[in-house]
Each structure stands twice: as structure tokens, then as C-alpha cells.
């Protein structure tokens, strides 16, 4: 009997491609929702990204009852409470989150309050607290990276206590994720690069960490192939709608992969660096990815070597001897980072970011050791190990 065991779960309906937004009214009607509220941020609104969403609904006679466009980059418990208040006051019956990670997490948290009742979101923090399905909830991602549209997690800051509250429940998953190339077409180059590398890291870690499984593997490899084939094309021609859609789909697929098989040390270090040095998450991912793969190398040689096929295609893969494939995979990732550096100066080392002091490395290492994702790293990480990886990533 096989010693392997795994679980895989993704009940999110993916609605992707040309004119995907125009499916929103039909999908909402299917869930008996008539009064949707949009939750988004100022940047999304200023970029004009709400217009096609609103137009798509109004054309079908579906009125957007309320729009909250003031979600901050780090959403808080008071923001969630305020939005829930508006939702109740306006008698809304569904939420459409339009944006990146923060708007999506906020939408998830608001959905808890308006479905379960009360004003105190902290009460629902933790795992497995929710026991019932929530209100209809749709997500329209405007970045191609976080994968939040298919994860069962939300993080909201409790500003009074100064802590980040995690929420985990499969009921947080939206009913549908709408992937429309129009939503990422205007993403600036450095954000396009950083978020794509976040998705690349999700897929790579999902494929090499402890909870990998056949289903998440399929999503992870497909995501890596799409990113390696489309990212540089989009960097060179930002209006390439086809490429944009490929990246957006890859992000969702990588999200499905990692939400079922978890991530590892790249994320532990990245979360710590984000908290201490306030660097964007995607940038941290791109920065640490090759160094962590080198550190994990002997534990992940086989799966890592397989990724060469999806990064560089069958010719390079078959021309590379088996014993060299894992190293070649790391080189391919480094090559991609060099290309991104050339196009938008996406930093490759901590020093290149200009925002990290060498004296902060110890603090980052210590914080990383407390991060949940370190549990799934294929190699047991000690404080000394974390420090060593950081030193290599320094310059």
C-alpha cells in the first residue's frame, strides 16, 4: 500500500478570458443575488478598472448598489467593520471584490461579518471557526500574482492590538473568480514583474515542498509554463492582451496549487522581510527564490530538475543531462530575474533593493523561523541556515 496521502480542494468557479466580466450578472442571478456591493481600492478606481465591471452589470439591468473604494494596502478590522455597516445599511446581498490581495482579503472578512453577524471580526479569527456557507462572493483580480481568489485565507490587521489576524475556512473561498485580461492590461511593468514572480514562487514551492501532490503538481507545472512563456513578452509589450491573460491564469493556477500544497522557506523569509523592511511581497519572492532553491537543492533535486521542462521547454530539457537538470532550473530562474532587472530594475539581491540594512538580517532570520510556511519546507531550517541564506541573498 502506498504511504502517500493527500487532500485537494478547489470549489471556485473560474470564469476566464475575453468578455469574462460580462458573465458576472448571469452568475449573480444564479445565486439569487440582486444587490451587489463592490469592495475595492482607490488605485483600482483611478485606473478606470471599475468602469467595465459596472458597465457589464448595468447593461444586464443589474445595479451595483454600493461601491467602497477606500481599502488600504494593509486592511484593518475597522475598515472591515465600516464596510459591513454600509453593506447592511444598503441592504446588499452579494460582494464583488475588485483588486489585489488587500481588497480580496477585505472582501472575505466583510463576508464573514455580514453573513455571521456582529461587528467584531476578531471573534472569527483562527481556523475552522466558520461552520456555514457565507453570502455570494465574487473576486475580480487586478494583479496577476497573489492567487488570493482561490485561497481559503484572509489576513486582517487588528490596529488596536497591532497584530495580524489570520482567518482560515473553506467558506472564505469565493463562488467565482473572474479573470478578464482587461483588468491587468494597465499594470505597470515593475508590478507586473514582481507579481508574476510571486506566482512563479507559489508554483515552484508548491511543486517542491512537503505537501506536493499529483493534482497540485499539474496546476503548478502548467502555471510555470505559462509564466515562462509569457512574462517577458508582456514586459516588452504591456498591451499584449493574450499574454496578460496567460499571466492572470497562471496566477490563479499557482494559487490553486499552493493553497493545496503550501509554500516554504521563500515565503517565510519573504513574510519576515515584508514586515521588517516594508518591501513588496512579489519583490521578496523574486529575490529569495534562487537562494532558497540552492539551499534546498539536495532535498528537492528530482522535482526541481523536472521543472526545467516547464521553464525552458523540451529541447533544453532533453539536451540537459539528468544530473544537471536541478542546477539548470535554478539557472533558468536566475536568467529570468536578470531579464526582469534589465527591463524594470526588479532587485535580485537585498542590497539592490536599497531598503535593507545588513544589520537587519538577523532579525529577518529570527522572524522567518516563526512563520507557518517554514513547516512545509522540505529541509529543516535552523536559525543558522536562515542566516546563511540571507547572507547569500545580500549581494
Amino acid at each position: 500500500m502506498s504511504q502517500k496521502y493527500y487532500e485537494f480542494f478547489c470549489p471556485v468557479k473560474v470564469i476566464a478570458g475575453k468578455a469574462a466580466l460580462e458573465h458576472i450578472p448571469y452568475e449573480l442571478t444564479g445565486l439569487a443575488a440582486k444587490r451587489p456591493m463592490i469592495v475595492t481600492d482607490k488605485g483600482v478606481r483611478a485606473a478606470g478598472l471599475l468602469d467595465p465591471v459596472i458597465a457589464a452589470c448595468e447593461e444586464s439591468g443589474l445595479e451595483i448598489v454600493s461601491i467602497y473604494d477606500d481599502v488600504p494596502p494593509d486592511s484593518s478590522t475597522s475598515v472591515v467593520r465600516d464596510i459591513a455597516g454600509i453593506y447592511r445599511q444598503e441592504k446588499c446581498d452579494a460582494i464583488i471584490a475588485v483588486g489585489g490581495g488587500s481588497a480580496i482579503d477585505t472582501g472575505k472578512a466583510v463576508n464573514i461579518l455580514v453573513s455571521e453577524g456582529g461587528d467584531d471580526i476578531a471573534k472569527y479569527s483562527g481556523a475552522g471557526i466558520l461552520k456555514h456557507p457565507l453570502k455570494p462572493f465574487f473576486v475580480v483580480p487586478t494583479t496577476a500574482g497573489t492567487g488570493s481568489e482561490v485561497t481559503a485565507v484572509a489576513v486582517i490587521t487588528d490596529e488596536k492590538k497591532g497584530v495580524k489576524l489570520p482567518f482560515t475556512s473553506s467558506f472564505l473561498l469565493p463562488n467565482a473568480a473572474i479573470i478578464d485580461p482587461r483588468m491587468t492590461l494597465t499594470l505597470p511593468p515593475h508590478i507586473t514583474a514582481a507579481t508574476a514572480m510571486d506566482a512563479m514562487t507559489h508554483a515552484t514551492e508548491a511543486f517542491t515542498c512537503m505537501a506536493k501532490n499529483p493534482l497540485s503538481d499539474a496546476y503548478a507545472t502548467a502555471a510555470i509554463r505559462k509564466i515562462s512563456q509569457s512574462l517577458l513578452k508582456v514586459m516588452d509589450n504591456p498591451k499584449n492582451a493574450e499574454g496578460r491573460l496567460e499571466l492572470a491564469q497562471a496566477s490563479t493556477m499557482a494559487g490553486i496549487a499552493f493553497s493545496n500544497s503550501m509554500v516554504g522557506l521563500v515565503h517565510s523569509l519573504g513574510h519576515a522581510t515584508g514586515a521588517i523592511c516594508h518591501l513588496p511581497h512579489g519583490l521578496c519572492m523574486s529575490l529569495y527564490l534562487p537562494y532558497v532553491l540552492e539551499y534546498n537543492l539536495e532535498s528537492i533535486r528530482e522535482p526541481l530538475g523536472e521543472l526545467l521542462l516547464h521553464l525552458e521547454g523540451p529541447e533544453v530539457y532533453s539536451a540537459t543531462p539528468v544530473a544537471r537538470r536541478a542546477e539548470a532550473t535554478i539557472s533558468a530562474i536566475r536568467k529570468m530575474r536578470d531579464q526582469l532587472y534589465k527591463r524594470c530594475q526588479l532587485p535580485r539581491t537585498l542590497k539592490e533593493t536599497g531598503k535593507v540594512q545588513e544589520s537587519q538580517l538577523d532579525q529577518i532570520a529570527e522572524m522567518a523561523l516563526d512563520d507557518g510556511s517554514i513547516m512545509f519546507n522540505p529541509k529543516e531550517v535552523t536559525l543558522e541556515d536562515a542566516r546563511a541564506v540571507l547572507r547569500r541573498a545580500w549581494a
Partner: protein
Amino acid sequence: MLLKRIQPMVFQARRLYVDIMFQVMGRALQAVSEVDETVQNEARALPKGLLFEMMVMPEGSRLIVEHTGDGHFHYHGQSAPRPVDLSIQFKHIAHAFLVLSFQEKTSEAFANDRMLVDGDVSYAVRMTRVLNRLETFILPKLIAKRAVKEYPANLHLPEKLISAARIYLKVATNFVETVRP
């Protein structure tokens, strides 16, 4: 038909084994936290008075330890003096058995969705490392290698503690051989 008669015995043996191993681990946690610096350093980051529980769902055996400060643990047996702060819960006794008989690593059990964490994840991460370290103490090297991701190179422990733990272990490994379904 034989299966029908043997099954309850297997179930009973498994329950007994999990019970015993929780007791072994609880005592060993306390003992190791008094002598091992690595465990102490790991535990020091936990709040003083933190109550940690490992239990089998729904109402099965449990092990409760308290961080009494400065990296030391106190074993409370089966019952907690107040609501616990951090709980690691096995979904089924079969999963607890896999981990406690060292057929599945603690980290693997997390990865395989065998157990849930209720409480602060960063504390759970620390406790997992403490448990890994503990497993290397309780077990002979050969089995410990299977139970933890990496066997530490710097393992020194008073002879007394090792031999005490090995006695328990002897009971334990015999169980694995007879009970394995």
C-alpha cells in the same frame, strides 16, 4: 470473520499505545526542557504560562504541557488547569498512531492534513521543532531519522535520560510490530 474478532483488539491496542506515547512524550518534554539548550532556546520565545495540548479528535487521549518560563515545560497529564492556548489536534486516532509510532513525521502529518492547529501558528511552528528535537531523544537514531526531517549533528544528552526514554521505547517499538494493521 477473524477480522471481526481481531479488529477490536487492534483498536484497543492502538488506543493504549497512543495513551502511553502521550505520557512518554509529556514526561520527556519536561525532562528535555530541563537539560537541552536547543529546546530551551526554542521554547523561550513562547509566552510564560502557555498551555500546549496535543489531542486526538473528537474526545480522545491528550497530553498537556505548560511553558513555565525560561524554556522549561511542565507536564500536566491529561487535564488542563485552564483553557489551552495552543492545540494540535489529530483528526483520527489512526493518524495519531502513525505519528506517535514514528511511521510519519510530525511535519509530514501537517503537510498531509492529518492534524489541525488551533491557536497561534508561530507557536505551533516552535512546538513542532521542539517535538522534532524530542523525537530524536526518545528514539534510537535509526527510527528517529524516519521521524524527523533531519537528524541533528549536535545531540548530547545525559546518559540517564536516554536510557530512561529507551525503556519506554522498547514498549513502544514492540507495539508497532504487533499492532501495525
